């Protein structure tokens, strides 16, 4: 594997939502860019030739929201293990949230992530800078310096931007830099409970719930401030039907609002905290698997109606894109009683398989899914990401090849991520990445497809 590697993938279903392509064809990668795309592309001398028959070839996925824990909690994840997990999940670009220890709140910290990313390999790992110093919610961080060092957006994620005033200032300042402010919308005065939706499951389990209102009230604040400032507010991990409506109305009024949803909020609902992945009624006895800390996530898994609203919003574009909120945790973080457990799911390696469930169920078309994982997130952030998410000739060679029909059982022990925390352990998913090429370099090759197949 070298920078000058030539790879020809032949006979795949090529889906490039950036230009509407959806046809069987070939793609040639050379010198780190897409060199040719079309039917019957001939193999240059020395090219690796991959048979893509029956597989989907798409732009590499772009994740606007992941937690990589480095520096500070390298026992949970590092930039390198996160990059490996991303490659296995078909992601070629990952934006790292700044809630590390210390926080990514300075140009130096942005450069630290960039240096770690270069060591990690070809997957692009881009830093999101903190809105406030130390994510402490008191004073603005040096946003321009972080932007100049390569920060692609700003967020205090893990926490909301602490006050309306700070959010107003951040949106105003970031707007001049041309970057979005991402907010984790949560009113802590409403959400004393964490990790389970305020509904019948929380009540049944005797857990303090996190009401939808706790998310929506801060989202409403941020939308109003985006309107006031003209800044770009990006809503992280929207989980409620009410939040979808807020975004829909804001967009209709021309406010600069974008939004993401996670694979888990799109595919799971509150009952998963009961440790049951099928239909369950309040009168059912709890299983021993109840209080499943693996399904503890913030915002919490909501109701089936919320999930349906998210899927509709993803389909119609109200929710712009999918982001993983990949949140790796250790065994000890999760193997405790529910209230003590950390929030978050390790998502990068199961995202495609989970989301393909929506395609197989007929809830979403495959081109729409690919769009929401590629060109859509690229457009949401723009800037350094604007050139990504497409298979246009000359574009950076970020490619994923996946088998839409391969069934596999989730085995967290086999994850590249240090985070084995997923409620999907043992579940069967349909749809799996076979090859990931980032910046023209093979980042993941599931089946050894590229070995010994030179033309």
């Amino acid at each position, binding site marked *: 594997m070298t920078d000058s590697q030539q790879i020809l993938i032949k006979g795949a279903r090529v889906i490039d939502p950036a230009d509407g392509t959806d046809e069987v064809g070939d793609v040639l990668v050379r010198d780190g860019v897409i060199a040719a795309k079309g039917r019957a592309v001939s193999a240059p001398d020395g090219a690796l030739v991959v048979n893509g028959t029956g597989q989907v070839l798409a732009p590499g996925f772009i994740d606007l929201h992941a937690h990589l824990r480095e520096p500070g909690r390298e026992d949970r994840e590092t930039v390198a293990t996160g990059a490996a997990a991303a490659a296995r999940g078909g992601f070629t670009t990952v934006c790292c949230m700044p809630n590390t220890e210390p926080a990514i709140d300075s140009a130096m910290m942005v450069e630290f992530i960039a240096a770690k990313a270069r060591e990690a390999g070809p997957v692009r790992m881009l830093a999101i800078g903190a809105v406030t110093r130390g994510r402490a919610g008191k004073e603005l961080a040096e946003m321009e310096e972080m932007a100049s060092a390569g920060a692609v957006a700003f967020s205090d994620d893990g926490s909301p931007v602490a006050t309306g005033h700070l959010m107003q200032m951040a949106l105003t300042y970031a707007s001049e830099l041309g970057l979005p402010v991402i907010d984790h919308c949560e009113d802590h005065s409403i959400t004393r409970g964490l990790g389970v939706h*305020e*509904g*019948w*499951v929380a*009540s*049944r*389990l*005797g*857990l303090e*719930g996190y*009401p939808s209102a706790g998310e929506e009230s801060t989202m409403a604040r941020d939308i109003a401030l985006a309107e006031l400032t003209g800044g770009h507010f990006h809503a992280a991990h929207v989980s409620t039907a009410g939040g979808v409506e807020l975004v829909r109305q804001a967009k209709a009024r021309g406010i600069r609002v974008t939004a993401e949803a996670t694979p888990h909020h799109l595919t799971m609902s509150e009952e998963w905290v009961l440790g049951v992945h099928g239909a369950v009624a*309040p*009168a*059912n*006895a*709890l299983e*021993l*698997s*109840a*209080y499943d800390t693996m399904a503890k996530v913030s915002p919490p898994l909501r109701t089936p109606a919320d999930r349906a609203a998210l899927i509709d919003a993803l389909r119609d574009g109200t929710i712009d894109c999918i982001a993983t909120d990949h949140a790796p945790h250790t065994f*000890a973080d999760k*193997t*405790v*009683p*529910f*209230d*003590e457990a950390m929030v978050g799911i390790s998502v990068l390696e199961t995202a495609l398989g989970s989301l393909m469930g929506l395609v197989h169920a007929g809830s979403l078309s495959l081109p729409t899914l690919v769009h929401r994982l590629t060109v859509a997130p690229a457009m949401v952030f723009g800037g350094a990401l604007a050139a990504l998410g497409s298979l246009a000739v000359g574009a950076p060679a970020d490619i994923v090849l996946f088998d839409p029909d391969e069934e596999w059982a989730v085995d967290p022990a086999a994850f590249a991520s240090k985070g084995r925390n997923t409620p999907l352990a043992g579940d069967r998913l349909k749809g799996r990445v076979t090859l990931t090429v980032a910046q023209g370099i093979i980042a993941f090759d599931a089946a050894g497809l590229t070995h010994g197949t030179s033309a």
Partner: protein
Amino acid sequence: MTSQAPAEPIALPATTLAPRRHVLDLDDFSRTEIDIVLDTALAMREVLDRDIKKVPSLRGKVILTLFLEPSTRTRVSFEQAGKMLSADVINIAGSGSSAEKGESLLNTTLTLQAMHADLIVVRHPQAGAPYFMARHLSRTGIINAGDGRHAHPTQALLDLMTMRRHLGSLDGKKVVIVGDLLHSRVARSNVFGLAAMGARVVISGPPTLIPLDLSRTSHSQGSLGGAAYEPDLDAAMDDADVVMALRLQTERQTAGMLPSVREYTRRWQVTEARMGRAKPSALVMHPGPVNEGIELSSSLAHGVASVIEEQVTNGVAIRMAILYQLLTGGELQTA
């Protein structure tokens, strides 16, 4: 068997709870199983009334009580129950937070099992902790002695036993539970037990202390069995067979969940006047300890309708029954 304990055989029901290993809540108890426990407990009450309150049934069994939240009543009740059945009962106390203890609940659990404990009786401030422990145990059984605001099945069983002794079958009986449902593990377990026994449950109390899904949606979709919510206690009391008042933690007022204790008392205290709307034979119950003059008037707490002290006695009998059933599989053993 030696003849150290001059115990007569206990008159036990012929059916058993086997192969049950844990008692985590009443939601997975059938009516038949509850009847088995209550019948066993009746036999145990007879032991309680003896001069020599000891039978050898659980000799050689080790019961650990792990109380990670302050409790005297329930712990002593379990300890007494175990000792009367000749089990070795070892009490462990501590804080519920692994951070404070320096040891995770997982490691504590595995350690206690490795010591070959037969049963662990656990009280934990966090809902679901007994489920967590049970998931990680391959041999040792768990009895939930109260987990957060979730469940307290032995308390509910002793309540059912007390009701059955006075009312006979609970089929169609109306049970009113009054007070802070939101934080009440006693009420949560009772609604499932009462539903299994065919009773009708009406819940009353401040709307701020009622789970949202019960106060906002039709009760058939709620999380608390088939219970209905009636905020007006006077209306709720009509023709009640049982009125169970729950303890009000007065810190709910300072937490902004109640306007004042005075207003609570005016609207939701169980009083003689309100008992006038219930059936003449209606029972007054309370899981204790009672804030007299808040949840209940003192005269009612100590009046003829009150079965509060009997609840305590039945609690020992119920815990003997549960320990016995889990540790012997209910096999009839004569001393």
